[in-house]
């Protein structure tokens, strides 16, 4: 043992010395590349925080083009969305922000975190129905436009065109047509729908949102239930029990068409299996498309909105504002930030972005989508036949996804809906002002 001590001391010293050198070396470049914010040599530095890591490279190009046109502005892109709230705490938030627009972002809007964008020239070019998706969550001071939609994701049923063609099945436009299609696949030994129930969110955004959105006016329902506040019970006209009941059997019917063992599959399993053609349909949004194509380059995909009634005119798509542009209210670089937002919403920028990312442009006069993977949803979006998923209206403190999962497994609809009523009332009581 004794003999080992000097040796270990020696190498410890040399290791420490090496570590010290590495530390010193690390410090030199770091002090060099710290970029100060605010105008410097007449160049304003804008911080742009966006919420989709997968499009960082795309925005780098957009920023490059923008800087070439506006040499007095330098834009720094940040995709670390987790730093947004700390930025607010530091009183140093990014200047321009994109966020997925739902509950959480609406909270920031109601607190007046974002500046009013209604005077921006580009605001007039936005489809008012899409702007309504944002303002329906509440507006600061009752009339401010705190966010402009940049990218709209429309979700429906992703289907495998090859399997549909091989079985001679046309895209269904009614519920009975959809059921007939499922029966055809089942008879041919093909799983009609690929279910991934292990990831509960896929049940929420899939069958729960689609069926409820197709059979009732979700936005109106949540306006009424919110107005009712904590006085919600099973018997109230605004309760889940009294509104969602008719939708539930259709959810169970969808579940019965899923492949065997759906309960043990997660989203990644589903993508891999569906890409290999193990099912005809997949209740997923456009975000899954890139994953499916990366797993199988030759797969031919399409999407259609799930018909929930037998009136084809009533078929609606589930949408969410995937990216909404905002400027933080206290930014010292307001003029530059507005110029950047104006640039991002120029047709050439925003339309190209959405075309490339299987999404819909928020502009009134955007061209029809040509991407065959999502073109089946184009009519619904163009005609404004869409809704935001019911699941997105729930406060995060309600474990909705787990309730949906236990409903799909246990098939007890009454228990499911009364649990939602109870949960909703509890949260309303806690948060009542």
């Amino acid at each position: 043992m004794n003999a080992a001590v000097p040796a270990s001391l020696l190498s410890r010293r040399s290791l420490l010395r090496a570590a010290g050198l590495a530390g010193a070396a690390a410090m030199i470049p770091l002090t060099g590349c710290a970029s100060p914010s605010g105008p410097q040599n007449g160049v304003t530095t804008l911080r742009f925080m966006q919420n989709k890591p997968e499009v960082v490279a795309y925005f780098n190009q957009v920023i490059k083009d923008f800087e070439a046109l506006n040499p007095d502005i330098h834009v720094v892109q940040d995709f670390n969305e987790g730093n947004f709230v700390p930025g607010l705490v530091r009183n140093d938030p990014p200047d321009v922000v994109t966020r997925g627009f739902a509950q959480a972002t609406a909270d920031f809007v109601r607190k007046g975190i974002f500046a009013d964008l209604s005077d921006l020239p580009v605001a007039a070019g936005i489809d008012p129905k899409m702007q309504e998706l944002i303002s329906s969550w509440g507006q600061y001071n009752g009339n401010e436009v705190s966010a402009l939609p940049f990218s709209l994701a429309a979700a429906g049923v992703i289907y495998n065109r090859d399997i549909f063609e091989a079985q001679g099945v046309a895209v269904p436009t009614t519920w009975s047509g959809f059921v007939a299609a499922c029966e055809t696949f089942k008879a041919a030994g093909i799983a009609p729908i690929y279910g991934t129930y292990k990831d509960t969110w896929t049940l929420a955004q899939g069958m729960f949102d689609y069926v409820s959105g197709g059979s009732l006016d979700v936005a109106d329902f949540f306006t009424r239930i919110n107005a009712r506040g904590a006085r919600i019970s099973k018997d109230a006209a605004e309760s889940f029990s009294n509104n969602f009941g008719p939708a539930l059997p259709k959810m169970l019917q969808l579940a019965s068409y899923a492949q065997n063992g759906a309960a043990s599959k997660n989203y990644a399993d589903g993508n891999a299996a569906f890409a290999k053609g193990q099912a005809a349909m997949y209740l997923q949004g456009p975000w899954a498309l890139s994953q499916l194509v990366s797993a199988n380059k030759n797969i031919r995909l399409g999407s259609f909105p799930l018909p929930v009634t037998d009136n084809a005119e009533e078929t609606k798509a589930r949408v969410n504002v995937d990216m909404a542009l905002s400027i933080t209210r206290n930014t010292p670089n307001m003029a530059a930030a507005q110029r950047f937002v104006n640039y991002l919403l120029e047709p050439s920028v925003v339309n190209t972005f959405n075309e490339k990312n299987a999404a819909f442009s928020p502009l009134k006069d955007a061209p029809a989508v040509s991407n065959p993977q999502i073109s089946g949803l184009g009519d619904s979006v163009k005609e404004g036949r869409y809704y935001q998923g019911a699941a997105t209206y729930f406060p995060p403190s309600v474990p909705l996804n787990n309730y949906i999962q236990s409903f799909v497994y246990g098939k007890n609809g009454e228990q499911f809906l009364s649990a939602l009523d109870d949960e909703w009332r509890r949260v309303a009581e806690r948060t009542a002002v």
Partner: protein
Amino acid sequence: MTVSTRPEPITGAAAPTGVTPGFRKNRKSNREGFKVNWWLTALMLVASLTVLLPLYFTVAMALKSPDQIGTGTGLAWPNPMNWENFAAAYVATNFPRAFMSTAFVTVLSVLGSLACSSLVAYAIARNWNHTFFRGSFVYLLSAMFIPFPVIILPLIKQTALLGLDNPAGVVFLHVLGGISFNTLLYIAFVRSIPVELEESARMDGATTWQVFRRIIFPLLAPMNATVGIFAFLGSWNDFLLPQMMIADPALQTLPVVQMLFQGEFNTNYSLAFASYLMAMAPTLVVYILAQRWVLSGVMRGAVK
């Protein structure tokens, strides 16, 4: 990781004795009576899979192309191998810059933790009869009971006011956050060092600082290694603190930058794993270099 290495002292202990000639005879007689415990060996082989299998998946995944990922059981070795994943991940994360930032945070956190915690522990252990020092030990320990996420927002506010919303602030908080646990480790060890050693140094005219620097700190070597490894792993892999504290995206650390490959609904597995592998490399190297000291620390504790 630490669990799986436990079996190693057995083989590790056998090796150095073989080197010393005086022990040769001893060892030979050992070998004659030596029986292989096959059950234990089999158990260890299985246990080692808990480390080797994920490591294999990481390497295999990093070399796969997107369409190779979905096929088969995942155990198959990719053919052809996609070495360009590493290049793509290197460019996408701006690896050198993120690496330097992480190295800066880690190296200073390790050195800071070693220096601060050992000094604190020495002061407390040698003044145990003073109520103040005993109280301060309890005070430091009580910090271990505060969950970090509870205080993160006030911390962000404070560090921003002090101009520490950068890697230096992360280092500061790592050193600070580690003090309670590291001091706990050190104090137990300092107590086992005979005070007589210090007294003899005092006789020779050493000051308190010299006693610490020349006598105590070198004797703490095994514990230094343990604390150093904890501090290294903690700060090299830390995600939450840099993510929330570092305001400038250009100074962000590797774990945060690697989120680039993980969207809300889509993950670029091959690039992600290539990037994880590059980020893991220093950890593995440091671990292999430093585990000797941890093990010697374990044995010293056992003898006493």
